[in-house]
């Protein structure tokens, strides 16, 4: 049982313990959740520190036989990208627990589901066996369904079922892809598949078809136009903690999967179909940004901004140059932090004002100055102002995607995508203007500002955003081996 397994299963053990706690003991429930998310966070920080950046590759690998009959194994391990995402997930889970501290409706079940959610997301990031990967991928639906359907707001049942159906739709494609790979190469192991040359084998399905099976599976999660409409509904109606997990780390599974499987296993197909996918990325960025401008619900607005920001991930991934891949990876992490912060602070805002309609809010800066400041930080991150991680990520995507030599049409798409930054500025500035600035409204005179605990967890995210933004080396040097070896697939 290595550290990675401990990180992976700690939350689910916590969830089981919580189930055993008597329902009346809410305090103990919360502290259990607190401890069982804090420990994985600490451990993943430790792993992040001790990962050997020189040699790169998969480290902390663990292997055990699982289903020998079909050669499926319990095989986990992390490289720079997945380790960063593991760290992001454990951090956001920990923060989600803090965010939900005031939950009063069935807290036991809530925290248990939250912890199970953490394990399933972590499982996706650490699995090196496709079957294991798929199982974690699908398990994640269960806690998320309940979190949205029971603790959500608005049309929560609709949103929850929509989320589940969409992901299952994508998951079905992905399963077909996994089976196709299995019947081609006879293994589920990602590491072995990396070393397999599929063109020499009898293919169960044409490689391009398999590529798209996987792509659709991940595209639903990322989300890519036109599979994106589950996202605003789910994010909007989910409770704050679930929104943070959804936007912060769950949709990163899509980007991670594309990186690991679509690019890693199908370099030729990825290159061949890159223009098509880059066009989708541009649609995501511009179309998503434009729709964001039209939103009137503040949570929905942030949700739609994710669609736009995930377009940058897609752009970076399928420009296929080392720098653009780095940019995409950075964007995955940066967006997790920034949107996590935005959802957290919006959750506080909605909780304190009991209002989520942008037109009905207004002039809050005077009444809740600290909350405003935190929202401004999240906002500048989202519109990629220098100093924040958002800037580093997006500028790296642009530099990489424009200068790529692998996809010849990438520069054109990059130039169009630049308008995404303009749109981001437009919607963030407008939101700030309408919600926080302008004359204060007497309705909100007695709205509470953030509490100490809220300050602390928002502060943690703020620090992370600026740390990466000001000193990107923190995270780049762990990502470098991954993107460098990946870029070798297209000749560096």
């Amino acid at each position, binding site marked *: 049982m290595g550290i990675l397994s401990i990180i992976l299963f700690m939350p689910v053990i916590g969830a089981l313990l919580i189930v055993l706690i008597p329902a009346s003991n809410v305090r103990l429930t919360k502290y259990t959740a607190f401890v069982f998310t804090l420990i994985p966070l600490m451990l993943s920080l430790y792993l992040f520190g001790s990962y050997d950046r020189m040699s790169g590759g998969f480290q902390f690998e663990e292997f055990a036989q699982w289903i020998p009959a079909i050669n499926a194994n319990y095989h986990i391990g992390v490289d720079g990208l997945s380790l960063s995402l593991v760290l992001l997930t454990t951090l956001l889970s920990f923060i989600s627990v803090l965010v939900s501290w005031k939950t009063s409706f069935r807290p036991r079940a809530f925290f248990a589901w939250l912890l199970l959610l953490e394990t399933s997301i972590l499982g996706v990031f650490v699995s090196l066996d496709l079957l294991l990967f798929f199982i974690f991928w699908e398990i994640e639906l269960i806690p998320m369904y309940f979190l949205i359907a029971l603790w959500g707001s608005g049309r929560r049942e609709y949103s929850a079922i929509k989320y589940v159906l969409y992901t299952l739709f994508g998951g079905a494609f992905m399963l077909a892809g996994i089976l196709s790979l299995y019947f081609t190469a006879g293994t589920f192991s990602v590491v072995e598949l990396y070393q397999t040359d599929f063109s020499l084998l009898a293919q169960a399905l044409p490689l391009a078809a398999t590529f798209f099976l996987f792509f659709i599976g991940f595209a639903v999660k990322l989300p890519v136009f036109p599979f994106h409409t589950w996202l605003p509904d789910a994010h909007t109606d989910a409770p704050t903690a679930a929104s943070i997990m959804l936007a912060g780390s769950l949709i990163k599974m899509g980007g991670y999967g594309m990186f690991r499987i679509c690019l890693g296993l199908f370099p030729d197909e990825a290159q061949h179909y890159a223009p098509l996918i880059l066009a989708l990325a541009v649609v995501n960025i511009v179309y998503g940004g434009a*729709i964001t401008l*039209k939103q009137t619900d503040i949570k929905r607005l942030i949700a739609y901004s994710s669609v736009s920001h995930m377009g940058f991930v897609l752009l970076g991934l399928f420009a296929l140059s080392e720098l653009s891949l780095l940019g995409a990876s950075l964007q995955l992490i940066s967006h997790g932090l920034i949107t996590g912060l935005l959802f957290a602070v919006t959750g506080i805002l909605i909780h304190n004002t009991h209002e989520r309609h942008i037109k009905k809010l207004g002039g809050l800066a005077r009444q809740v100055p600290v909350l405003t400041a935190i929202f401004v930080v999240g906002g500048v991150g989202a519109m990629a102002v220098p100093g924040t991680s958002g800037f580093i990520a997006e500028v*790296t995507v642009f530099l990489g995607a*424009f*200068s790529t030599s692998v996809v010849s049409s990438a520069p054109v798409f*990059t130039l169009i995508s630049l308008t995404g*930054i303009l749109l981001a500025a437009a919607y963030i500035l407008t939101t700030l203007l309408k919600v926080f600035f*302008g004359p204060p409204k007497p309705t909100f005179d007695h709205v509470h500002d953030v509490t100490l605990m809220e300050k602390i967890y928002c502060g943690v995210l703020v620090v992370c955003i600026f740390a990466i933004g000001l000193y*990107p080396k923190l995270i780049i040097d762990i990502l470098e081996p991954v993107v460098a070896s990946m870029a070798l697939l297209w000749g560096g």
Partner: protein
Amino acid sequence: MSNIPEILIWLIPGLPLVSFGLLLLVVRLFRNRSVWNGYVAIMATAASFCLSIWVLFNIIKSSEILLIPGFDWLTLGNVINVKIGLIVDPLTAIMLVVVTSVSLLVQIYSLGYMHGSKSFNRYYAFISLFTMAMLGLVMADNLLVMFMCWEIVGFCSYQLIGFWFHRQPAARAARKAFFITRIGDFGFLAAIILIFSSTGTLNVMEIHSMAAAGLVSGTIITWATLGIFMGAMGKSSQFPLHTWLPDAMEGPTPVSALIHAATMVAAGVFLVARMYPLFEHSQTTLATVAIIGGITALFAGTIALVMNDIKKVLAYSTISQLGYMMLGLGLGGVAVGIFHLFTHAFFKALLFMGAGSINHSTGTFDMRKMGGLARLMPWTFATFIIGSLSLAGIWPMAGFFSKEEILASAMANQPVLFVLALATAFMTAFYMFRVVFMTFTGRCKSPVKPHESGRIMVIPMVVLAVLAICAGWFNATGGFSGLLVSDKAHGWLYGIFGILSHPLAWISLLVASGGILLAWAMYYKRWISPLKVSSRFWAPYVIFSHKYWIDELYEKYIGQKLLNSGLFNLFNRFDSIVIDGVVNDIANLNLSSGKIIRRVQSGNLQLYALFFLLGVAVISILAMLAR
């Protein structure tokens, strides 16, 4: 030059940064001593200022370029290597002095102007951050770092324009300023990625040397420089991206003096100057720069003629003068443009401070409500007159010399633009003295009794007034130009008095005096009624006073109608009706087909038995047939 320790150069932007940090984290704990915020920021800026002066003198002495390689910041293998390093060349040194001096004076002035404000902390924190970013911008040796500082000054400007965020116009102006400059930044960023993809580096010096060696194709240079100029247009408020600057006057007046008159808006000019070695390779871009500059100068000047808000006049005047600088850059080169930037920074900051001082005592910016302030506010009056004369270009004020250079290079290259520039000069003199006469002479219409501002505000104004007179003499022996360009093109500028030997000087003086005289006749002596003029020339008057309807065009037609309720609305509808609609329709199809099919499931057991019976019958028939 090598006798300057590197650490001291790092301290120039570093000190304001430290001040920002202190203000953000430490000083805010002393809520009851809010004036400390000011002291901390002022001390930091003062130290930076001393260092800058020292650097400038060293540069003048040794005239060598100091490159500080700095440290790795964003590196990825051999793909990209962005270092945070510094360039200290004459251009930088001049900008350092301009930025630190104006910033210092503005901060001192603010102690008086912002007296009693609750948010001293926020104010000085952002001023410090702004100063740091502005210094970083002028010192950065890397396009990406420059872009970062560029955006941070934009963000500070956003925060400071919206300093009184509870006022709707201020908040709207802040958003507009940030957004419109971002449109320019779009071009800048595009240029950066274009340069990176074709040169593989972002280091300014390396780019310049590659361009000089002919390693970069002409088309790319043209597009890249056009992109950079687009960024400059946004920041320097050039037509057609100028609309944010007049609105930005909603911010506190010292902020307008610092950011929207002297430094940030001049950053665009600086950027063009910094990348000038690249611009030189593209005649197209240089012509564009000159033409845009000329158009902006005239265009903004015409609007300034009819504005009644003193800060709006100054704002349009700033736009006009920035256009002048661009014109100078496009036609004459770095020295010409930067020289005007240098002098303009002082006298325009001075004029804004004067306007602030007036507002501080009368509580309004509307000139129609002022008048007769000359006696009541003698210091403000005197310094304002000096500033106006300098701006109008009257010998021997600073403005005269720098304007002279631009006119000279325009005359030498482009007669059309020369006429344009001359017309602008006339208008400049006219509208400035319109302000002077409307504000300081005649009957006092202010409801409250105006009084002279406190010493803390007057002293910075006096200092700036001195600079507004003398800054031009710097170039009297060609010292300024010689600093920037080794082979000096304009050899005929030989001294403060020697300049008068040239006919051009007399032409421009004549034009400027004409403007002043006309203003005197209209607004002091009232020989010509302004009302009659405006009704006689009603067409231009309406156009000017509506600012050519450009705000309406942008906000109402492009922003609101075309994009917001047009395209974006279409997207939104498409998303909810088509994309989401299809999904929901599929779901509904399932539901409704289920509704039909479920009728079979009537709940009547006997019906089920009948179906069962049907099955049995079919099976028995099959069994019978099988025999």
